[in-house]
């Protein structure tokens, strides 16, 4: 269980980006953080990853192993797919030869086994994102952080990656924190949704999404999905209407 308590971030310019964010993320949950752009949700994710320090407040229960996926795939262009996926292990001192089975496994998880020796330049946007996911999962993290990972992809690719991500999350049982500005994407994927206000960001509402544990395209017609979309959209509208 990951607990954020009273997270506040003030930039040196005096700008208040986050204002007392309290959030509890259940172990094994798929938690989405939804909010308008500029609400500080990416900053929040960076803090969970340990890349940024809050001005005040605490984060408790962060596991040792964390996987991180950005909106860009951020692959090393000079290295092939295998070397890119190897990176997290390499940085902890695992040689390529010893890491090979785990690299192969991670690539198989995202369906890219045949592209181990391709360079990022030769891959489509969706495939690059798959490599980034394989790289994040190769250390078998307890926590996967994703910052609008599919926002730049076309809808078909995005839907496929959503389904693949859900399958991975069910099978591998890691906790996921997923940043998005898409209500539909968040409801489709999540067990829990936190809606944030515009800057200064606060958590204004929490939602639990019911429905079947194994979701597929049929879930988009499920009452739980529709109710979830309605409720989250409503909150987001409220958030945008509230005076800053």
């Amino acid at each position, binding site marked *: 269980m990951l607990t954020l308590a009273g997270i506040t971030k003030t930039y040196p310019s005096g700008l208040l980006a986050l204002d007392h964010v309290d959030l509890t993320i259940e172990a094994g949950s798929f938690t989405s953080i939804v909010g308008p752009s500029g609400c500080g949700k990416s900053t929040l994710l960076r803090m969970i990853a340990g890349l940024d320090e809050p001005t005040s407040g605490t984060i408790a229960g962060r596991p040792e192993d964390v996987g991180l996926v950005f909106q860009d795939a951020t692959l*090393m262009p000079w290295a092939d797919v295998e070397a890119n996926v190897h990176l997290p292990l390499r940085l*902890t001192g695992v040689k390529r030869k010893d890491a090979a089975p785990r690299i192969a496994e991670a690539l198989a998880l995202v369906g890219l086994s045949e592209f181990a020796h391709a360079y990022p*330049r030769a891959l489509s946007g969706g495939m690059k994102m798959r490599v980034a996911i394989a790289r994040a999962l190769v250390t078998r993290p307890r926590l996967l952080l994703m910052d609008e990972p599919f926002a730049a992809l076309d809808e078909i690719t995005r839907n496929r990656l959503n389904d693949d991500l859900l399958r991975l999350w069910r099978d591998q049982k890691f906790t996921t924190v997923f940043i998005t500005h898409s209500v539909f994407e968040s409801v489709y994927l999540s067990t829990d949704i936190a809606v944030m206000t515009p800057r200064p960001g606060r958590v204004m509402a929490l939602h639990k999404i019911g429905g079947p544990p194994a979701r597929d395209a049929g879930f988009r017609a499920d009452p739980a999905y529709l109710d979830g979309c309605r409720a989250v959209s409503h909150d987001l509208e409220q958030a945008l209407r509230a005076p800053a």
Partner: protein
Amino acid sequence: MMRFLPLFVGIVFLAAWEFSVRRLQVPVFVLPPPSAIAKAFADNLPVLMSALWVTMQMTLAAFLASFVGGLALAILFSQSKLVERSLLPYAIVLQVTPIVSIAPIIVIWVGLDHVERAVFILATIVAFFPILSNASLGLRSVDPGLSDLFRLYRANRWQRLFLLQLPSALPALLAGARISGGLALIGSVVAEFVAGSGEATGLAWRIAEAGQRLEIPKLFAGLFLLSLTGLAINFAVARIEHLLLRRWHPAHGGGAG
């Protein structure tokens, strides 16, 4: 077809040159016809070639020294802001001071008995800066996302340098090397002109000597050889650049991956 266009232009140019010089009866010591230059080239081949060899050695040595030195200093700068702040202004001073003006003092310090040492130092100074500035730029132009990733996985300074910064810097570094290769030749030639005494035996000295003796066709033959050398250096570095970058860099696509 397009490949042969420069060659075709060259032939037309030489023919027009030969024709007009003969037609207008320009004296050979003002502008010799290409045929006379070719003859001078053939007659003086051993002398020119041994001079070229001297200049080439000097150029290569200066290029390698500036590459290693420039890269090492850029890495040092990337590791410590303090060192960069303290040393960069002096590197720039060295860069903006015309080489011709420092040459006499360098010659006095190290070149009185060994002109080649002075030439080496001067050529290295000229070739050094493009490597330093391009490598510095390259080492800084790291993808911020990748930089975060290295932090997330607690990469140490050396892992960051070898696995992230140096590969990121490679394209800029090689572009710098291309400029620097040409400058090493220019530096060697200029230094040799300035430092030139009876001891210098490089191509620049042969050209200066031919000028003083009014052996203008020989002078042109030397010039021709210099241009050819410059082209060869440029081509060689471009080739290395292509070989190192073709598999991943967008500007070096070429289909074959």
